[in-house]
């Protein structure tokens, strides 16, 4: 990490680094091939500020109603040393939770650095693993190596020790109605929890313990039906863990990406910002819109150069990897001779164009003729 760290600091300019949060992690797992996001996240760039400075502010506003509701629910579950949470774990899930201790690892006073907070998390968890002391650890600050750089994660979760094993407890304010919740929200929660499980496992391994002491079963705590009453659901995140581990291993190392970039590149807000951002290649897909602050800028860029990826992955797949709209249309109308590897795609596109023209000509011939 030491040889890329100075470069990363320069990239960020004068602003302090941002910790990874739920959104960057979601982006990380949904679009691992994007160099632009990779470099900016590794450097801890404030992408929201960058996107705003570029004239493409991210549409990720949060309604105060949603925030109030989320906070109220979390506060309710954690009130009185997590009394309601413990009732849930004991009664609903039938867990044998003996005596209870609650440690909040969030710093209340002062501007303690994240290194210090992380070492506090380490210290407390080390003691817990040695002695079995402590039950609930709120707001741990975790560290995960991403593309060769340490990234700090500030999960809004509780690490829960039970019978020598650690579980992740995630509190979410989306409702579980009759045992069912919105699949996208559950999937997002599972992806996030998997990241935390992985980071906890790495920490446990660093402390000289068996990483399997962090369970792959996480507990999702959500409001039940239309009430504020919490319900807890165990969620097996093994599939998400496997995906995440594979993607992290495959991620292009950030130092390899940096080596390709001009030495004086900086994402400091200013006149050359757009050019700097464009210097790092993006891989835009519409899914970015739900996770990445840079998405609207990248979409504009992708549309301007006629990238088929801007229409969605399925369109891109249907086109057999033809990258631009212009090329695909030229292959379809026969004005472009395909290279050998595109011969099959071109044949299909030409057939599609012929069939569309035939069907539309037959049915709308009169209308089209009239318009012309």
């Amino acid at each position, binding site marked *: 990490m030491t040889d890329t760290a100075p470069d990363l600091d320069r990239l960020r300019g004068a602003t302090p680094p941002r910790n990874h949060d739920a959104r960057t992690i979601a982006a990380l797992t949904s679009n691992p091939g994007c160099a632009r996001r990779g470099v900016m996240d590794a450097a801890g760039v404030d992408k929201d500020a960058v996107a705003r400075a570029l004239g493409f502010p991210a549409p990720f506003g949060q309604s105060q*109603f949603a925030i109030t509701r989320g906070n109220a629910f979390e506060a309710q579950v954690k009130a009185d040393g997590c009394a309601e949470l413990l009732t849930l774990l004991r009664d609903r899930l039938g867990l044998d939770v003996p005596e209870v201790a609650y440690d909040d690892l969030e710093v209340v006073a002062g501007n303690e650095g994240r290194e210090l907070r992380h070492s506090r998390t380490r210290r407390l968890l080390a003691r817990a693993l040695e002695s079995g002391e402590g039950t609930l650890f709120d707001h741990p600050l975790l560290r995960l190596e991403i593309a060769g750089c340490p990234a700090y994660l500030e999960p809004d979760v509780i690490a829960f020790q039970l019978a020598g094993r650690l579980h992740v407890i995630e509190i979410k304010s989306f409702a579980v109605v009759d045992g069912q919740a919105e699949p996208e929200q559950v999937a997002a929660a599972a992806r996030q929890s998997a990241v935390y499980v992985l980071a906890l496992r790495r920490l446990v391994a660093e402390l000289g313990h068996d990483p399997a002491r962090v369970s792959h079963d996480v507990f999702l705590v959500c409001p039940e039906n239309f009430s504020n009453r919490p319900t807890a659901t165990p969620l097996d995140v093994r599939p998400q863990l496997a995906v995440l581990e594979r993607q992290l291993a495959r991620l292009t190392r950030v130092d390899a990406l940096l080596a390709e970039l001009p030495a004086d590149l900086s994402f400091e807000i200013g006149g050359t910002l757009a050019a700097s951002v464009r210097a790092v290649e993006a891989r835009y897909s519409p899914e970015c819109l739900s996770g990445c602050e840079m998405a609207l800028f990248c979409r504009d860029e992708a549309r301007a150069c006629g990238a088929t990826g801007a229409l969605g992955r399925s369109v891109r797949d*249907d086109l057999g990897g033809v990258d631009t709209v212009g090329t695909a249309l030229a292959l379809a109308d026969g004005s472009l001779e395909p290279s050998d590897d595109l011969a099959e795609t071109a044949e299909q596109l030409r057939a*599609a164009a012929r069939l569309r023209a035939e069907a539309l000509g037959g049915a709308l011939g009169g209308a089209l003729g009239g318009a012309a």
Partner: protein
Amino acid sequence: MSALSSLARLQAVAAGAAQPLATVRHCHIPDAPLVLVPLKLAGEAAAPLAVMAGSAPDDATLLVVPQPRNRDLRFAFAADLAELVLNHIETSRGEVEELPPGKEGEKRIRYGDAPQLLVPNRGGVAFLRLMGRSTRFRSTDGPYAVDPAVPVLGRWLTWFADRHDHPGSSLLLAMTEALRLHWATGQSSLEDGNLAALMGWIDPPDGMDGPAAAARAEDPVLCPPAGPTTDPTFDNEVLAPAIAAYDRAGRGSRAEERLRSVLAGQLAPTWDLMWRAVGLLRALPEGASVPRRWERDRDAFTHYHQTFGEAYPQARRDPPVRAARRLHDLERAQDAYDAQRAFDDPLVMAEHRLDGRAFGGTVTECDPARLDETGKRPKLRPLLRVGTEDPVRLDAGTTVCNAARPALKGRIVEIGDGSVLLELTGGMGRKLTPEPGAVPRVGDRVCFTSLTEGSFGAAKFPDREDTPWTHGGPPGEYAPTDEDAAEEWS
């Protein structure tokens, strides 16, 4: 998504305007559908905030919950909405048709018409579903009594949401889905979820092209979201202060009037879009099997309406046998719907031609009088050779039918060199010479396909009391409890 619709998207990008994906309308649009544009409070599962509803563009009713966290106001809203929706249901029955009696001689009827609900997007459908779930178990007496119309509304909304899952049903339509069935835009399907952007591509305002109209549609100030989720900035800067002012001033105050007017401001643009979209869909000629599918919808409506009084609210989760039967019904409906759309619409059939499950072209050779005399009795078996450029992926021996007249059936004899040789087997009359006009002639354009409408037979399922032990055995009888009625709705 297929290569054909992907190509349509590319063409839309190049043209700056949406491109047709259908040449006929594949859904039913009655004269007076009930358009519903719901809004909910952010962060809550199904806390209604407002709804704009009505059956004509100039007849919008606005219902508002001035303090969405107040349970009594929510139920008052539910009662008002119930009056509106139930009135629509009762006035959309039409004349009663007498049908021939059933197998056991029972009397069968069918309503001449059925109600239709139109919401802007899938979120609207999900909202109605949850709204139905949160109201259908309510009790009309006891300590948590609600207006008698509330649980009735809940059951009807649940039924509509359930029918929405049914492929080809037009009882509850999400406008974005209905439009996407007929047009391809130059943006991704994710972005098509925004009704204003989608309409921007299909029917942009004067002086704008598709991309410009879609870009405008993404600005929540110019085009408020079509719900049910509101724009967060609107929530923070307009709605929250307006609700707080109402809390201070109370019912009937000017603050309530103001709250209604800001919510109307959020809903009205979507209301107008909905009716413009209805107009666009109405302008398309109706597909040939749309009336048949609407008849199935009318059957379902008649049945539910007739048995409403004897039935309990729909279960929270289907018992195993009902779940299996429902899944089977959905699969059959999907299969029939896919085939019907292809037979109705050459542009949909083109997708199957590209897949190789159908082929079209010109008849190059024809022997209409050929007889097969190998059996005991001679059979009429005309031969037909169709020249085609399509990538046919059917095997010799496959049974196919004529897309224009599915009764005309044939068997593929050989495929090769840009042509398909067919032996016609049925649909030409009962004599040894074909009925006039039944067999295509040399030079005719034809299309044959292996698609069939009823390939999926009905399966048998055990009765409820015979649910096998593998599926938990017979489920217990439902009995309404006080707990249902007391369920919080906060």
